[in-house]
């Protein structure tokens, strides 16, 4: 048996938007001992269809089982294995950061550099919206961490396969 290294994988799942579909997916992961790092789900432009993006860790064997097991679920229409195809992905984070007299300018500089947005302002805090890939969000969090983060809400990754080049 070849055991390969554990890696992070991104999987796209197109599902019928019926009651319990998310429970079936999440239950499959917990029941079989697979890991979910992030999961996002929302309806697509087509009524009745939901797209889920899920990030998991495991070796190649685990990934292959995950894809096959997901495909067995009746309400799942298509599974996109992004280990096989190129894809674009984005994540959004809301970050509430301490913004006192002395640090406000630095916060705004970081907002500027990372093309983030200030979405809420109060006497002592700014709430920022940052969109980007995971690396960018982590970088922002690291820099703001030195100033003082109060709360963070991250959406987790949303991903789509790149269109085929002609």
């Amino acid at each position, binding site marked *: *048996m070849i055991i390969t290294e554990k890696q992070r994988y991104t999987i796209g799942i197109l599902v*019928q938007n019926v009651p*319990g579909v998310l429970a*079936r997916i999440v*239950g499959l992961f917990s029941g079989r001992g697979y890991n979910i790092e992030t999961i996002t789900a929302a309806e697509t432009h087509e009524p009745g269809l939901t797209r889920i993006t899920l990030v998991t860790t495991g070796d190649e064997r685990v990934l292959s089982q995950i894809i*096959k097991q997901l495909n067995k679920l*009746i*309400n799942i229409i298509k599974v996109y294995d992004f280990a096989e195809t190129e894809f674009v992905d984005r994540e959004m984070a809301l970050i509430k950061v301490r913004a006192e007299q002395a640090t406000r300018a630095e916060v705004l500089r970081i907002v500027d550099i990372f093309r983030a947005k200030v979405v809420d302002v109060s006497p002592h805090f700014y709430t920022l919206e940052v969109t980007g890939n995971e690396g960018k969000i982590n970088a922002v969090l690291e820099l703001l961490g030195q100033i003082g983060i109060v709360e963070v809400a991250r959406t987790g990754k949303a991903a789509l396969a790149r269109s085929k080049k002609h």
Partner: protein
Amino acid sequence: MKMKGSQIFFECLKKEGVEVIFGFPGGAVLDIYHEMPKHDIRHILVRHEQGAAHMADGYARSSGRVGVCLVTSGPGATNTVTGIATAYMDSVPMVVFTGQVPTPLIGDDAFQEVDIIGITRPCTKHSYLVRNINDLQTVIREAFYLARTGRPGPVVVDLPKDVIQAQTEFKYPKKVDLPGYHPTLEAHSGQVKRAHDILKKSKAPVIFAGGGIIISESTRELMKIANLLQAPVTCSLMGLGGFPAGVTDSDGRRRPNPLWLGMVGMHGTYQANMAISHADVIFGVGVRFDDRVTGKISEFAPKARIIHIDVDPSSISKNVDVDVPIVGDCKNALQQLIRFCEAEPIENQAAARRPWLEQIDKWRKDHPLTYSKDCEVIKPQYVIEKICEMTGGNAIITTEVGQHQMWTAQFYEFDRPRTLLTSGGLGTMGYGFPAAIGAQMAFPDKLVIDIAGDGSIQMNIQELCTAVCNDIPVKVAILNNKYLGLPRQWQELFYEKNYTGSCLEGSPDFVKLAESYGAVGLRAVKPEEVEPVLREAFRIKKPVLMDFVVSREEGVYPIVPPGKSITEMLLA
């Protein structure tokens, strides 16, 4: 014309060709029971809902048709869970209808409310909560379709009481629309060709067949392939009967099938385990490479390239790395392979395999399945050999789980598919007796025998009442050693003879118990009584419980200690 949900329920079942329902009523399903007498569908009233699920399972496994059970909400539903999980592990087509509290009460912890869809999600192929009367017929249509197609499995349909009471137009859908469900049945011909290229050059192939052979009804194809390739065949527990252990000569005499190795795995035959371990090609057909078969996975079939056909892609390369995966229905894949094989002259194949078959024959002669005969006490293996001999392999055999199950797999020679019904995957004690009742409903004229232990039989003994009340003449042969035999054997071999919890003294007098239910009870305590008791039981057209008082500390051999390679067999 508008119909009530309860009537639509029966109209749908009729469209699906359902002839029998195994069930137990309760508040949530009383509308269905109220409607039932108007329809020509037989209802078998069980004494415990687990029994209903196993009966539907036994009906399905023996006939290939979808088994149906109907239970009420709450405890009625939860009592079926073991039966559903049993069917799921062994890919049995079954539809379980559960009652549910009225939709406005769902989520309020109403009386007898349970989230049965949530509870059964991991052990069903699919499940439905019908929230709207207009969905009822579509859901039932889909449930039956899903249960029997692709890799079959149990489907749960949860029916809230108000939905069953509501009305709508009945129009049974002609087609199902399941955009996410497209099982691959047609095997990829390129892959089949690759498999053939490897098989024809192989010097030491082994065909390893499982329950998929029986589900896809490919016994003929398997026999043909084995013959064309002159390759020996072994089966998992679930595959027994899928390849004949014996063949009938032109003069009508049965002789052992020279290509048959017996079962493989933890209690497999010496020749099967040795053949797998020395093979250069393993050709898996409708199997899962379950841990009870492979033993220590890193030492399983160390020299072999592996070809694997399965209708479920997730069974392939799950436990062992496969060199040639073939996704598809076993029958389709084997038919394609036969066409490739037929292009090769069979004489060449026979010559190429001769040394391998000779080696296997040597293994077979070195360590045949055996047990020490005794003229004072009944040996459990002897009872099974007698049942096999006296039925000529023409009975449907069910088993519970434990030593008697393994002895049945070893000492009963299965020649035909669907003649062994046993809980292979989940290993459910209490399965065999209700499964036998289900099988007898599918085949009223056949001899159906549950081979049981004194432990297992007590897990669903209440169904004796069901058998008696409905004139279902199943036979039960209890191999009574007053122990939970397999745990006791493991404790003897691997747990310092610490027999905690495995002694079963204090069980009821099974003969009197049978009689109090209105069945016939028979007992044998000496070897010479075995045959007369069996003959009497087979003659009586009533349910019969036979109590064979057997030698207490008999072990199942060979046994591969857990975690060891399958070549490391303890032979006695």
